[in-house]
């Protein structure tokens, strides 16, 4: 009898997984309320002591992520790759990079994350593959190869001249001559990343198979990397083409039909008026990154001027009901300055990239804490602003403890160094020999693992980590920050960024002093006359709002988050 029962149980469990339904599917709009946490698997935790982070190590850190309070992990590329572009050069879409483990390890991790109420989305590059990918090898080998038409080939390198070159520092053209193929191939990024030819229905089908493969394994969605560039058309910039949107609609229809609560997150580094098209009419991506806000936050705090932030949000068109912006301060790439004016870019470079090594392409390759001169008040202020704006915030691993960067490492490796868990050897990241580590951990006296690590900050109630933990919990306790409307206040003192968020009966007022000096501000809150602001952290009641301008004073880089209460 025992054996029958054991078999039956195993059968039930397998059926539940195969059916693909899990506890969280009770809320298809979960991503609108989520705090995301971006992880570079290689740099997070090493479970097998080979010097490189992996899924086993990641699974061991789920208790930490659950404690931190995040809702969804976003994984950088995890697929087999020659790693000439941090894994964004995929050479097999149906497997896991051997450094990170196996498909089984992946599945174990996803199940364990789900058991803790944490979802998992992963990067997927659908625009191109690595030149090592068998599809490309087959394609280049012969003009009559069935895969020939899977990539974009040309006898000349003068087609699609209106398409800009993105990786200015390394690439001179979007075409590269392939002596094996005897033709040029098209690539919007590195020359070792040939673009797939989405005009070919087989390619469209193949990529849908890739999506289904991972969704069937339990993945909760994808961040679609480099999504504007799928199609090419003569006489256009080859970005944001109608054909690209049509294909995204096809992907979305597939997801809605078979995987109703999974999410597509578009990476489209474009102006808001272009990015909103990636939401379609609620029938393309569920989320898209709000890229242009990010450099303006850094601009605003340095210039002590709220206008850049208020202006860019004002220029952002409304989005469909079931859609959400993704907001971030820093990520695994350089702080990109493509979406600011030339004058603003020069200003940003002069302020934030004092050493030429800090520049990369049109951006700055530094982490949050060093960008803000390791100022605790500045980090808290920027995080507060990020959490108060409309959208779902994304935290970048290590920024919650104020990790630094290493500008002497190449490309973007400087912001991808090992997570600093303890003050022990290798920062507790790995027990491998130091020389085997994929990158050296930071060891300088300010940002090194002996000064900055999870273990020490957990023990210290006033640490940045403990503050971030409380702040995530505070935001989650008030749905108004994830779901509410946004109304800027534009006070006369432009050093103060103030806005009102509203959702159902809840009204939140967020006021931030961008200045390094103390500031007063007078806010016109007459439409809330009679209500009482309650500061959310300490639940302290402030004076009742009247018809006259409401006066608040701030210490340097200070901020208040209020709930406006009508019941006291």
């Amino acid at each position, binding site marked *: 009898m*025992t054996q029958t*029962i054991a078999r*039956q*149980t195993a*059968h*039930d*469990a397998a*059926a*539940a997984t195969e*059916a693909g*339904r*899990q*506890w969280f*599917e*009770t*809320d*298809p*709009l979960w991503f609108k309320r989520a705090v995301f946490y971006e992880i570079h698997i290689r740099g997070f935790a090493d479970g097998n002591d080979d010097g490189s982070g992996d899924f086993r190590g990641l699974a*061991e850190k789920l*208790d*930490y992520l659950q*404690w931190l309070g995040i809702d969804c992990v976003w994984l950088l590329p995890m697929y087999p790759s020659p790693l000439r572009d941090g894994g964004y050069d995929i050479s097999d879409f149906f497997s896991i990079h051997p450094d990170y483990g196996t498909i089984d390890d992946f599945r174990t991790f996803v199940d364990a994350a*789900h*058991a*803790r*109420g944490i979802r998992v989305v992963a990067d997927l590059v659908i625009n191109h593959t690595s030149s090592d990918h068998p599809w490309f090898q087959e394609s280049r080998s012969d003009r009559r190869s069935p895969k020939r038409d899977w990539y974009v080939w040309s006898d000349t390198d003068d087609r699609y001249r209106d398409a800009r070159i993105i990786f200015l520092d390394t690439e001179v053209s979007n075409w590269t001559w392939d002596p094996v193929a005897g033709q040029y191939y098209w690539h919007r990024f590195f020359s070792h990343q040939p673009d797939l030819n989405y005009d070919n229905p087989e390619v469209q089908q193949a990529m849908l198979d890739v999506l289904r493969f991972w969704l069937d394994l339990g993945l909760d969605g994808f961040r679609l990397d480099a999504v504007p560039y799928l199609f090419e058309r003569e006489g256009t910039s080859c970005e944001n083409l109608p054909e690209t949107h049509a294909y995204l609609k096809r992907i979305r229809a597939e997801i809605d039909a078979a995987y109703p609560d999974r999410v597509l997150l578009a990476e489209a580094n474009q102006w808001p008026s272009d990015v909103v098209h990636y939401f379609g009419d609620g029938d393309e991506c569920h989320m898209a990154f709000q890229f242009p806000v990010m450099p303006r936050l850094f601009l605003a705090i340095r210039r002590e001027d709220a206008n850049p932030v208020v202006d860019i949000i004002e220029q952002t068109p409304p989005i469909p009901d*079931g859609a959400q912006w993704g907001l971030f301060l820093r990520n695994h790439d350089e702080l990109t300055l493509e979406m600011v004016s030339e004058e603003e870019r020069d200003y940003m470079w002069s302020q934030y990239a004092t050493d030429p090594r800090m520049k990369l392409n049109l951006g700055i390759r530094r982490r949050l804490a060093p960008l803000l001169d390791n100022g605790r008040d500045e980090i808290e202020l920027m995080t507060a602003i990020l959490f108060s704006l409309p959208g779902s915030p994304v935290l970048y691993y290590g920024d919650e403890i104020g990790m630094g960067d290493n500008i002497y490492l190449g490309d973007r490796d400087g912001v991808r160094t090992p997570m600093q*868990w303890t003050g022990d050897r290798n920062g507790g990241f790995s027990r491998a020999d130091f020389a085997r580590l994929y990158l050296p951990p930071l060891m300088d006296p300010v940002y090194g693992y002996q000064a900055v690590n*999870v*273990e020490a900050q*957990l*023990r210290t*109630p006033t640490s940045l980590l*403990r503050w971030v*933990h*409380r702040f995530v919990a505070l935001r989650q306790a008030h749905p108004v920050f994830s779901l509410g409307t946004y109304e800027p206040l534009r006070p006369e003192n432009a050093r103060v960024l103030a806005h009102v968020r509203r959702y159902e009966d809840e009204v939140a007022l967020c006021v931030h002093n961008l200045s390094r000096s103390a500031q007063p501000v007078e806010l016109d809150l007459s439409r809330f006359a009679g209500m009482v602001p309650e500061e959310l952290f*300490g*639940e302290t009641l402030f004076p009742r709002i009247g018809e006259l301008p409401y006066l608040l004073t701030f210490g340097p880089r200070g901020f208040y988050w209020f709930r406006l209460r009508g019941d006291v």
Partner: protein
Amino acid sequence: MTAAFREERLVEYVRDQRWFGARSSELTGASLVDQAVLRERPPLLDALVELRYGSGAHDLYQLILDGAGADVPGASEAGPEVVRLVRAAARVPTADGEAAFEPFGDGLTGLPLERSRPLGAEQSNSSVVVDESALVKVYRRIEAGENPELETSRFLALHGFESMPALHGWWSYAGAPLAATLGIVQEFLPDGADGWTLALDELAARPGAFLERVPRLGEVVGAMHAALASDGGDPAFAAEEVTGESLALAAASMDDEIASVFLHLPDDEAVAPIAGHGEAVRDLLRDLTAIGSLARRIRNHGDLHLGQVLWARGDWLVIDFEGEPARSLPERRNKHSPLRDVAGMLRSFAYAAQVTGAPRDAEERARTAFLESYTTAVQGTGLLASPEVTERLLRLFELEKAVYELRYELSHRPDWVPVPVAGIVRLLEEAS
């Protein structure tokens, strides 16, 4: 056979049910996901119904419907039918899958299936008493996966733990939408008295009578933990070592919780004994967590207190292994230190003593007796580390519970605030 599904009527009906957990959400619609026929004539259907909320979220609930598509109050008619089907190990095909009825042991043999009545007074489920000897528990909110109550009580039964109502069977659904446990059938104990009621009756009036029962209670809880930790080959139950990091994470959470509760302490006489002592409590926490390890963690009861044990057949039985129904199913299956269950019971003694105004030493004697027999019962299982670590951990979990109680009572039952306050004072005194 398809019953008329009356969405509007069901929505109205569900909204008023005790077991409907999402009362604060706006219920906007209902649709039938799948259904199994429990009885042909007159029709009785076991239905999985999706309830939709204004926020876009949705839940799955189990409803027992009659031929007119109306819910059968308290699911009472389903009781005998479920027993019949379980006894027959029936498989009932549905549109998208099947409902499987599984007997466990032969406890249902010979039941006449003549009488059934709703048990009543339940929060999140509906139970039906059949022939005053079997209890059919219908789970209401359905989540994918096996219910921890079934999983735990079956595991305990197979591992020689008998101090619980006997498990007679269960039924579950597997199909395209999901696979999930729908309910269980277990022994009904008509003459059982729950520990909380017993304590209220006896602790002040006849403290000796209650204290005599306590050593056996410790023994039973110890035997339960020993059984839960006894199978290293079953990953769902195998005991796990606890890392230093998870202790640090737990400590950080508790520290924030203490700081927050003390920050908002009202200006009230009931909290005067601890007012201004927030930092001392945080110091105590720091001291209690400086132990390096939480020893081992196992699946435990999850919500153990005097209300979850039954005095019946002249012995204690542990009931209700469902965990806290408000938490998600995977969360309820998490492993914890068994001392959290123990701390739950100790806090329950404190409540009972305070409520009844029992003699000063009654609580103390109950604690001592319970811990002694518990410790003996788990000896040799490796569940407890050294006596020093055990004592610290117990105080740590008692502190955690007392702080949680303090927050709860302050906002829900101000009259009960003195109970957790006394608990915190006691822990502070022991430390100094």
